[in-house]
């Protein structure tokens, strides 16, 4: 047995075929290009509150954001809206995607009033949903 191994080692030089390497790399690039989702939304400038129970939200494709800033302004898809509009916007969004998750990104200094109005509008707008999934965007507490 030791003989055999030695012989085969000496005989041929080991070559790794590198001809297909570029194909592999290109395929990888194509994969990453196709799976990349660009975020177009700019949103409002908010400082998120911190919470110990912060979880990671995995289904980010189903997320729709609502921004609420310090002054209580509400923004959806980069448009300033009032709570009444949210009802119709999210009724349309829900009919497009029934797995919709609404993420509320509100400033920690924002008054609670607009936040509550948004929740009530969502409950009225997405009335066909068995339940409305909401995420309060927070930062993990350090």
């Amino acid at each position, binding site marked *: 047995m030791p003989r055999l191994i030695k012989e085969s080692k000496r005989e041929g030089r080991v070559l790794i075929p590198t001809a297909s*390497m570029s194909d592999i790399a290109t395929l990888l690039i194509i994969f990453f290009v196709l799976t990349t989702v660009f975020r177009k939304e700019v949103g409002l400038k908010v400082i998120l509150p911190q*919470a110990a129970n912060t979880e990671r939200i995995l289904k980010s494709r189903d997320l729709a954001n609502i921004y609420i800033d310090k002054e209580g302004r509400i923004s959806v898809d980069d448009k300033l809206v009032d709570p009444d509009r949210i009802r119709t916007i999210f009724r349309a969004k829900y009919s497009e995607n029934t797995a919709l998750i609404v993420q509320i990104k509100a400033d920690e200094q924002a008054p609670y009033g607009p936040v*509550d109005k948004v929740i009530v509008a969502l409950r009225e707008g997405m009335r066909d949903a068995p339940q409305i999934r909401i995420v309060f965007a927070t930062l993990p507490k350090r």
Partner: protein
Amino acid sequence: MMRLRRPMAMQEAEIPTASMADISFLLIVFFMATAVFARDKGMKLAVPPKTEETKVVKLSGKKLMKISINDQGQVFVGDQPVEVSQIPDLVRQHLAETPDAVILIRTHERAPYGRMIQVFDEVRKVPEATRVALKSIRAES
């Protein structure tokens, strides 16, 4: 015309492809280095839709644990002012007595949102607290 053809036939044109893999990998490295992962983080909550058929369930007494936040951001459990850090113990205590109680967080319209998240976060620290309701207190003008 014949002359022109000759040098063409003589040598084959080759494009060197040996460095192709290196170029591709450099591109991958560039994209990986510049990629910003949008990690969405937050606290999940499911609320029922509001329709005509939505039943209004009236709860009273021990079945309802009221946590209120006033416009100054002060927190009350029932009528008693409390510190935010006391909330988990109070909730645990209440649920030990009445296991099916609903925890209602009433927040004043002008109270800062961060305060409500703080309270909500404290309530969430109690795993038994699964029935939580959110409500707002209208500002009297």
